[in-house]
């Protein structure tokens, strides 16, 4: 355990193994069981673009290639994205309770996505990318409004005020979504399942939809890892350490919103992944963002792949929305973190 904790290569190997194992398991388990080695081979051949030899069962190949692999990969991308976005939000806002969901960014993106989906919008030139683009835009606007609102309340951007404002924004945006759904009068069950978050029945198209946003967002965040370390000590300190805070802050906020928005666009709102995964990663491997960000990605991706597996198998043949499972597990953890956070603040207050 101490080797896992203290050696950086060991940390990456462990996280990577976890991710790969989760993918393989996620792909293998289901109504049709595929042996692990067979699915590993199929995944490997798909990834490398190789032909499938005749000894592989074509049913397996089709199930994995066309149904399970895109689904699992989508879960991995969404999980990795939400985790890295959460880690970035937490560092930037010096707030261990921040994540795309608690900040209301997810709700903002949802509103954007619902608007596109149910009004059937398509922005010329963007085509099918209208959905993630509008989602991202709505998420970013929500975030800027939120931060402006909190700053108007108090300059210090305290943890609790941000979260409180996030809840207000979430509720308001949530009710707007409900209103829109009520007015459209479409088939409710499908919409609700989408809102609660799901990676079911999306296919390769959705993987392609999120991928460019995911790559751009993650690259921007990884490029700002050192700056996040400095920003944790406050904007003024970061500035005196040489960080171009204005540019970096905006870049980080934009990148985290891009990732969140695109994730919401393809999978709905999946809460608490961005909160719990970075927290767990930080607990094991420390708060240095140069490692926290990539490790959170690996762990978050694997985590959501496994969660999705649980969502579709726990009461099979019925599928649970994946967001329900993350919320059931995440909300109590959120409460625990809040509890710890308050106790810590009080202790520091006492010491001063």
């Amino acid at each position: 355990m101490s080797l896992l904790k203290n050696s950086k290569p060991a940390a990456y190997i462990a996280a990577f193994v976890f991710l790969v194992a989760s993918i393989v398991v996620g792909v293998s388990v289901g109504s049709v069981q595929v042996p692990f080695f067979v699915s590993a081979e199929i995944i490997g051949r798909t990834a490398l673009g190789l032909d499938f030899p005749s000894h592989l069962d074509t049913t397996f190949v089709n199930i994995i290639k066309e149904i399970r692999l895109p689904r699992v990969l989508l879960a991995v991308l969404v999980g990795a994205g939400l985790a890295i976005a959460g880690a970035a939000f937490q560092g930037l806002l010096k707030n261990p309770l921040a994540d795309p969901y608690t900040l209301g960014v997810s709700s903002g993106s949802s509103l954007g996505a619902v608007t596109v989906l149910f009004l059937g919008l398509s922005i010329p030139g963007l085509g099918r990318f209208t959905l993630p683009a509008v989602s991202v835009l709505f998420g970013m606007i929500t975030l800027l409004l939120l931060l402006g609102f909190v700053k108007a309340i108090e300059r210090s951007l305290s943890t609790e005020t941000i979260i409180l404002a996030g809840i207000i924004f979430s509720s308001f945006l949530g009710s707007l979504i409900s209103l829109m759904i009520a007015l459209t009068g479409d088939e409710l069950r499908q919409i609700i399942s989408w809102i609660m978050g799901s990676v079911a029945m999306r296919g390769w198209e959705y993987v392609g939809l999120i991928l460019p946003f995911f790559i751009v967002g993650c690259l921007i965040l990884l490029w700002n890892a050192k700056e996040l370390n400095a920003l944790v000590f406050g904007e003024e300190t970061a500035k005196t350490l040489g960080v171009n805070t204005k540019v970096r802050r905006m870049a980080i906020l934009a990148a985290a919103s891009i990732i969140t928005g695109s994730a919401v666009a393809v999978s709905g709102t999946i809460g608490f992944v961005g909160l719990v995964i970075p927290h767990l990663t930080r607990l094991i491997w420390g708060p240095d963002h140069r490692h926290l960000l990539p490790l959170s990605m690996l762990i978050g991706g694997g985590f959501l792949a496994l969660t999705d597996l649980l969502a579709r198998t726990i009461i099979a043949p019925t599928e649970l929305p994946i967001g329900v499972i993350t919320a059931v597990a995440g909300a109590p953890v959120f409460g625990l973190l809040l509890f710890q956070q308050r106790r810590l603040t009080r202790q520091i207050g006492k010491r001063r």
Partner: protein
Amino acid sequence: MLLNVHQLTAGYGGEAVIKDISLAVKEHEIFGIIGPNGSGKSTLLKCMYRGLPAESGAIEVEGRPLSAFSNKELAKRIAVLPQHTETTFSYTARQVVELGRYPHQGGWFNNAKAEDKRIVDEAMQETKVEAFADLPMETLSGGEKQRVLLARALAQEPQILLLDEPTNHLDISHQMNLLNTLREWTSSKKITVVAILHDLNMAAMFCDRLMLLHEGQDTGTGKPGAVLKKDKIEQVYSASVQRKSHPAVPSPLITLTPEPGPGMDEAAIDRMEVERSADLVKITSGDYWKTFSSSIIGEGFGWHKVFVNRHVALDYNIDDARQEYIDYMKQKKIDPDEAVGMMTAARLENGRDTRRTIEGADVWVMATAGVSNALDASRAYEQHVPMEIGTINIWIFIDGRLPEAAFAQVMMTATEAKTRALLDRDIKDVVSGTMATGTSTDSLMVAATQKGMHHPYGGTATVLGRHVAKAVYDSVYNALEK
């Protein structure tokens, strides 16, 4: 000049907190900014690291305007030690210090990893934080945290170090350590320091120059001795202070004086109790007297309320007479910290006292005189007589307020009067046969209530001096009557 500030005005929300400040910080000096709360010290410092924009005026570093630097360029030149730091996540001390290398690092790839590590290690050694390099910041004490942040600042390899009340929350030994380290760095690392300091005496001791701010304005910049004038400090801080010299180093020492207590005590001399026995004369006062004396116990300047003249045998010869005297006092239930103690081989019952209460001066002199070792000061260099305890001991009590210079003048006056008494008693130097000017072991104490009448001088031209001289002369003359 390394850092220039020209007619800087700055503040918050259009309201100027500092007005028209100009200063020039030289290389390798420690420049202190002092002033009461709300005088604009932090605002000025903030402007220097570009944490606050100037409303008018300009700041230059190395002759370039502050605005011409990128954040990284500026961070290579100026490091800031904040008053306190927030740590939301548990970074280790080393991770915090590593942040100091940020301005020296490129974007994606860092090609100077070994160099960074060396500088971080050095900085941590310099501030003695290697021992807790891998501990989380929040587990460290205030002083340790401060040292970690100082190491971070050092890792920036800056030319200028800005500090906002660096000694806040530190105990006095940590304060001294920090300031000593800074002073050392000004020469060993060619660093220039600009610091806001609360403690005027620390500022005076460690800064080459000071700026005293008052309501956002510069009331004077210069050497500590020139800036820390009693009148100016009293006006700026609206408090009554005294200024003295530091006992060990050439630096002014500012001390607060509380408001005087209610009701001035009258006739302090009359209320003193005198206790006499064969081996001891003890005078006890209810109040403390400010004393200046050459005695064994309670020597130099001090505040005392018990005055002891102790008779010892002629053959009294103890190596550590001071310790022996302290033991003696404790045995007599006298607190040595509150007492002035002299000793003599002369018979105490031959001691004489004189009180003079004229022209507003109230002076009381007690003297005991033994002249077996009388000598002529001008011929003392010829003699090799062993120290004997003959001794003329003189106590001068003055009900009045005297500056320290007046204490010294009273001493001179008293010495002259004593010599004249010896002359008139025809006391001779036992070796040379010339007229004696005193004995080889005389002791003198001047004590004043520091209340009531003010006596600015104590020379023989003054009322106080004249009466002290007469009282001393009479007491010594009479004491020599056998």
